[in-house]
C-alpha cells in the first residue's frame, strides 16, 4: 500500500471519468437515432443525418461562440439578434448592389464589433453579462427592423451558389458549403480551447476569475475576447443563415439564443463556467436537431403536442444523461 499504487489507481479511474458525460451524451444520441430508424423507414437514409447538419450549421457555429462565453461563466443573449442583423445587413447591402466580397467583410465585422463593445462594458464597468447582452439583443434586433420592416431577398450570384452548391452527390446524398464552414469553425474553436493560451485562460477564468487575476492571467483581455469571438461566430452564423434562407428577415432567429444556450448546456458545459468541450456542444446541437427531425418524421402531432413532446424528449435525454453521469461519478 504505497502512494504509488494509489496514484495508479486514480489514473485508471480518471481517464474515462473525464470523458463519461460526453460519451454518455453520444450514446444517448445514438439511441435516439436508433429509435428514429426503427420507427420510420426513411429515417435510415444517410441524407437525414446530413440534413441535420445542413439545417443546423449556423446554429452550430453560434453555439461554438457561446461555448467560449459560457466557459468563462458569462452568457451572451445577443446572439440570435446578431445573427438576424448580420443576415439583414448583408441582404440590404446586396440589394443596394454592393459587391459580395465587400458585403462579406462588412457583415463579418459588425458582430465582433458589437461583441467587443459588450465585452468592454461587462469587464470595465462590472455589469452583469446578462443585462449587457440583453441590451445588445435589443439593439441588434432594433437594427433589423430599422433596416427594413419586411424581409429582403438575396439574389446575388455568390450567395445563391453558396446556398445551392451541393457537395457530394447532388442527386443523392450531399451537404452544403455551410456544413463545411461550420466544421472548420468547430475545428478551430476546439484547437483554440485546447492548445492556445487564450483557450486555457478561458477555462481558468471560468474556474475562478479571482484566482485567474491573482495568477497574473490577462483576465480583461480574455473576457473581452470571448464576447468578441461570440460576436464573430454569430456573424458567421448570420452569413450561413443568409446562405441558408437567401434572405434577411427582421424576425428571423427570434429566441435562437435559448436554443443555443440549451445546446451548449446539453453538451455538458457548465453554466457557471470552467468545464466543457466544443465537441459536447456539437452533440448538443445534434440532440436538438434529431429531436426536431423525429417530430417532423412523426407528423401526427398537433402544435401543442409538438411542444410537449419536445419538452418530454429533452427531459428524458437530460435525465438519462444525468443519471449515467451520477452512476459513474
Amino acid at each position, binding site marked *: 500500500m504505497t502512494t504509488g499504487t494509489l496514484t495508479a489507481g486514480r489514473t485508471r479511474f480518471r481517464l474515462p471519468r473525464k470523458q463519461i458525460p460526453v460519451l454518455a451524451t453520444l450514446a444517448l444520441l445514438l439511441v435516439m437515432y436508433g429509435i428514429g430508424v426503427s420507427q420510420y423507414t426513411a429515417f435510415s437514409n444517410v441524407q437525414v443525418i446530413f440534413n441535420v447538419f445542413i439545417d443546423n450549421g449556423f446554429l452550430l457555429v453560434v453555439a461554438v461562440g457561446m461555448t467560449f462565453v459560457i466557459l468563462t461563466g458569462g452568457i451572451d443573449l445577443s446572439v440570435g439578434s446578431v445573427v438576424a442583423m448580420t443576415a439583414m445587413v448583408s441582404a440590404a447591402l446586396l440589394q443596394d448592389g454592393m459587391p459580395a466580397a465587400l458585403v462579406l467583410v462588412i457583415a463579418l465585422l459588425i458582430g465582433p464589433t458589437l461583441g467587443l463593445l459588450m465585452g468592454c462594458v461587462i469587464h470595465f*464597468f462590472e*455589469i452583469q453579462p*446578462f*443585462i449587457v447582452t*440583453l441590451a445588445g439583443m435589443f439593439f441588434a434586433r432594433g437594427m433589423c427592423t430599422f433596416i427594413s420592416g419586411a424581409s429582403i431577398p438575396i439574389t446575388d450570384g455568390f450567395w445563391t451558389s453558396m446556398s445551392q452548391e451541393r457537395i457530394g452527390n447532388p442527386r443523392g446524398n450531399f451537404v452544403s458549403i455551410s456544413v463545411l464552414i461550420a466544421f472548420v469553425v468547430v475545428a478551430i474553436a476546439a484547437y483554440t480551447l485546447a492548445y492556445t493560451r487564450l483557450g486555457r485562460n478561458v477555462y481558468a477564468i471560468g474556474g475562478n476569475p479571482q484566482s485567474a487575476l491573482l495568477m497574473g492571467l490577462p483576465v480583461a483581455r480574455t473576457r473581452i475576447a470571448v464576447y468578441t469571438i461570440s460576436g464573430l461566430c454569430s456573424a458567421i452564423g448570420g452569413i450561413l443563415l443568409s446562405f441558408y434562407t437567401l434572405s434577411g428577415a427582421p424576425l428571423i432567429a427570434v429566441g435562437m439564443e435559448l436554443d443555443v444556450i440549451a445546446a451548449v448546456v446539453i453538451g455538458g458545459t457548465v453554466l457557471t463556467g470552467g468545464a466543457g468541450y466544443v465537441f459536447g456542444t456539437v452533440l448538443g446541437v445534434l440532440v436538438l436537431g434529431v429531436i426536431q427531425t423525429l417530430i417532423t418524421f412523426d407528423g401526427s402531432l398537433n402544435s*401543442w403536442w409538438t411542444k410537449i413532446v*419536445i*419538452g418530454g424528449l429533452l427531459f428524458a435525454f437530460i435525465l438519462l444523461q444525468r443519471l449515467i453521469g451520477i452512476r459513474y461519478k
Partner: protein
Amino acid sequence: MNDAMSRYRAITGHRLFWPAAVLFVMLAANTIYRPGFLSIELKDGHLYGTPIDILRLSAPLILVALGMTLVISTGGIDLSVGSLCAISGAIACMYISKQPDQSSLGVVVTALAMAMGVSLVLGAWNGVLVAVIGIQPIIATLILMVAGRGLAQLITEGQIITINSEPYRAIGLGHALTLPLAIFIALAAALLVAAFTRRTALGMIIESVGGNSMASRLAGIRSGRVIFLAYVISAACAAVAGFMMTANVSSADGNAVGLWVELDAILAVVIGGTSLAGGRFFLSGTIIGALIIQTLTTTVYAMDISPQTSLLFKAVVVIAVCLIQAPAFRARFSRRRRNSPPPAPVADKPKEQVPA
C-alpha cells in the same frame, strides 16, 4: 458641511438610490415630453391616469419577479414562469368558461384553487429536477418553458378562451380604495414574500445556499429543500401573475399569456441589484426594477416611438440604466475627493528601522 456631505453619501450609497433615480428620471422625461403624463383624475370613483396604468400593468411582472428573485438568489434561474402564467390562466379560464354561472364566487375560487394547485405541482417538478436530480437550472426549467406552453395550449385547445366572470375580472381590473386591485395584490404578495423570507430565517438561508452551497451544506443546511421551496414559491407567484394577466383581458390565450415575461423578470431582478450568480437578494430593488421596465414600455407607447426604432430606444435605456447603477462606471467618471479617512490608530512608539 461634513455632516451634509456624509448624509449625501449615505443617501447615494443606498443600494436603492440609483434604481430609484433612474425611475425618477424616466418619469420626468415623460412629463417633459407630455405634461399630462403624471396627471391623475378621478373617474367613476377610480383613479385614472398613466401612473396608475404603470402600477397596474407592472403588477404581474412584480409578482413573477418576486419569485424569480428567490430562485436567482439560490444561484438558479427559472425560465418556465411565462409558461406557468399561461397554464394557470388557462386552467382558471377554462374551468370558469365551462360553468353555467361564471360570475359565482364559488366557481372562481374553485378555478383559482385548481390552477394554483397545478402550478404548485409544476413548481415542485422544477424543484425536483434542480434540487434532487441536480440538473442545471436553466435546462431544467427550459423543459417546462417549452412543454408548458404546449400544455397551456392543450388546455385551451389553441383557442382564446373568453370568459365573462365579474369576480375573476376583478383580479385584474377591480378597484379598492380607488386604486386597481392588482396593485394591492402585488403589494400583498411582496409583503408576504418579504415576511416569509425576512421574518423567518429563510431569506438568510437562501442567500447562504446561493452564496456558497458547499459551505451551507457543511453548516447543516438542507439546501435541497431550500432550493425546492424557491421554485415552488416562484411557481405560485407566476400562477397569481397568470390570473392577473388573463383577468386583465377576460380571456386566456395559451400562446400569448406571459410570453417572454421570464426575460423581463430576470431583468427586473438584476436591475434591482441581485446578482445572477446567487447570494444576496433585494426584494425592494426587484420591485423598482419591474417598475422601470413597465415605465420603459409605457414610455415607448406614450411617446409613440416608432416600432422600427423602439428596440433601439430600449437598448439605449437599458444600458444607460445599468451604467448609472454600476459603481465602477461612476467611479471612473466622477473625480470625487475622498472623505477624510477614519482617525488613524496612533502608533504609540516611534518607528524603528535598522540599517541594511
